[in-house]
């Protein structure tokens, strides 16, 4: 029992890192070039970073095409100065690549970069490849993608949706990359990851095989600090880092211009992120996203917006600790909020109960004050959440 409890404490300690305040970097750490370019008849400020050892100089905002079948929007993106179009073999069952193919037809091959992704059958639970995941199948899919795009090569080809280090080193796909490079069908290879990102990024870095990593990276990730660390290591080894899912969570609340802009600025604060792909579907959002390059610095208002959103998305506090000392009963509010997160976000009542047990709470919690003196920086209804989760102290141990 003792051993088990220590394990949980370690778990809590490690997750605490994930709920600390959002990091905000000073702009002095950015390494980029700024150019004024003519964009659809207007002068616009563009910020470029180099995509690691590929040497590709890309604007920090590029286009993830996956959500649109509108050729005029893709055309407008390219005409506006965006250089990289990101798609995948499987998007819209291939229609996405076909639409891009129609747009780039006739354009000078040096005027744009195409990144696509190929996925092979994986076990959904383990993230490991199944028997049907062969070199031949990968290369066959690449040929289909090239045909849809009307190209003889793509600039970046990613192994799509990797979530395990074993999958990064999956021999048949490595072989396929090697053959594709030799045949001149791809310039650079990479891996895309949406889950268990730190492990995958570390594995790609250690493999010394690939050129680029496309990773989900957002302030809403519970483990963004681990992602940040892995990205820094990868970037130091010369890998190009492309960020995605910067504005994740449209399903939970309508994205506003303010939170879209702030979300992109947040990810671009990290000097190790060389570009992000934005999945805009309107001309208005294209303009909004490009305008981010006018000033990548987060305003105070945008920082507050991010703090709020991070809390709404995960129902957990951001550990700003501004509440410390405000409660006359000296309740450990950040710890109680953590217990709340374990219960409702992680759905792990046992962990929450263990934590509550360690907090030495009084018999009656948040029941005797006529009003709450604690002012939460992000407007959490603290007494309500505390009353809710403190009930667990009266429950017999679940373990």
């Amino acid at each position, binding site marked *: 029992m003792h051993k088990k409890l220590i394990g949980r404490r370690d778990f809590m300690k490690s997750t605490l890192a994930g709920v600390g305040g959002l990091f905000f970097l000073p702009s002095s750490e950015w390494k980029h070039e700024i150019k004024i370019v003519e964009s659809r008849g207007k002068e616009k400020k563009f910020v470029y970073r180099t995509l690691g050892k590929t040497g590709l100089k890309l604007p920090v905002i590029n286009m*993830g095409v996956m959500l649109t079948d*509108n050729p005029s929007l893709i055309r407008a993106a390219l005409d506006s100065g965006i250089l990289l179009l990101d798609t995948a073999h499987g998007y819209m*069952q291939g229609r996405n690549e076909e639409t891009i193919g129609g747009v780039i037809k006739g354009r000078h091959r040096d005027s744009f970069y195409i990144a696509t992704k190929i996925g092979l059958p994986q076990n959904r639970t383990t993230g490991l490849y199944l028997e049907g995941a062969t070199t031949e199948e990968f290369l066959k899919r690449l040929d289909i993608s090239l045909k849809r795009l009307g190209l003889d090569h793509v600039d970046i080809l990613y192994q799509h949706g990797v979530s395990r280090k074993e999958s990064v080193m999956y021999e048949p796909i490595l072989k396929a990359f090697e053959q594709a490079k030799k045949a001149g069908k791809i310039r650079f290879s990479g891996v895309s990851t949406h889950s268990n990102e730190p492990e995958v990024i570390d594995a790609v870095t250690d493999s010394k095989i690939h050129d680029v990593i496309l990773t989900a990276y957002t302030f809403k990730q519970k483990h963004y600090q681990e992602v940040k660390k892995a990205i820094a290591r990868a970037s130091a080894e010369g890998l190009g880092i492309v960020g995605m899912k910067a504005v994740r969570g449209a399903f939970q609340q309508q994205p506003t211009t303010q939170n879209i802009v702030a979300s992109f600025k947040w990810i671009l604060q990290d000097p190790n992120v060389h570009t992000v792909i934005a999945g805009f579907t309107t001309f208005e959002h294209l303009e909004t996203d490009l305008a981010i390059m006018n000033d990548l610095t987060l305003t105070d208002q945008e920082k507050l917006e991010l703090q709020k959103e991070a809390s709404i998305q995960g129902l957990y506090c951001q550990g700003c600790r501004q509440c410390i000392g405000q409660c006359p009963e000296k309740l450990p509010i950040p710890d109680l909020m953590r217990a709340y997160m374990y219960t409702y976000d992680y759905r792990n009542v046992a962990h929450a109960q263990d934590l509550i047990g360690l907090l030495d709470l009084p018999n009656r919690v948040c029941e005797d004050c006529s009003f709450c003196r604690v002012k939460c920086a992000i407007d959490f209804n603290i007494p309500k959440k505390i009353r809710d989760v403190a009930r667990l102290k009266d429950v017999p141990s679940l373990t």
Partner: protein
Amino acid sequence: MKAICLILGITICLWVSGAETKGFKFPEVTGWKKSGEIQTFTPKTLYEYINGAADLYLMYEVEELKVAEYQNEKKASVIVDVYRHKTPVHAFGIYSQERPPGGNFFDIGLQGYYEKGFFNFLMGPYYVKISATDTGTQDQEVLLSFAKKAAGNLGEKGKFPPLLASFPEKRKVENSETFIAKNFLGYPFLYSAFTADYELPDKKFKLFLIERSDKKELGNMIQRYLDQTGKTGKVAVEGRHTFSDPHHGEIDLCWKGHYIWGIINLNDLALRSNYLKLFEEELKKRK
């Protein structure tokens, strides 16, 4: 007792918040066994299953996804994804985004098509995607048997959106019809648009149609488009409007009653007028 009730209460709360199911029975196919539990995804958790592709499905109001995996003795596998959307029109929308006009179509559900390794079909508010791995030369046969049984368990096959019948048939590309739920033409003020492709020996163009029960919505669309294209001050009225769109070129758009219809990518004025008229005639036939 109080403690048990509390635990039960919390457990039920968590369970209810994560589960919104309807009675769909996954197919039983001879020689295949389900491997693992049936998984259920909601709009909030869809990312966990299809990653970034979830955004597109969310635009088409997906309400739930149920997934079952099967294996046979030879370790081949089949995955059945059943997406339930808010309405049959939304299901058609996402299906039409992925459907290849020149596909290998089958009368399964309302319509389905086969490509090596997968079979997709539409049925009422359901979009069903079945994929197979390691099924070798029996790939099509296996997928079809799963698709037929899944369709049989989903009830009524439903109908294509009736509005599609109003598109002029002349030179229409078969199975090119789509439904765009949001941001049609890249504008947030244009939505719920049906489209179809047309092909002449030297021209390809697109017709579109929007129907709203509230005429004010249509008036607002025209007004916003007028403002967008620099015709500020001009009031939206029913009739034909020609827009010089900076992104799409010249677009003719007609508003009458509960409909807006128009043409994209067609410079030939006479042909444009001809098709707009044909469209209007078809719309008149609607009750």
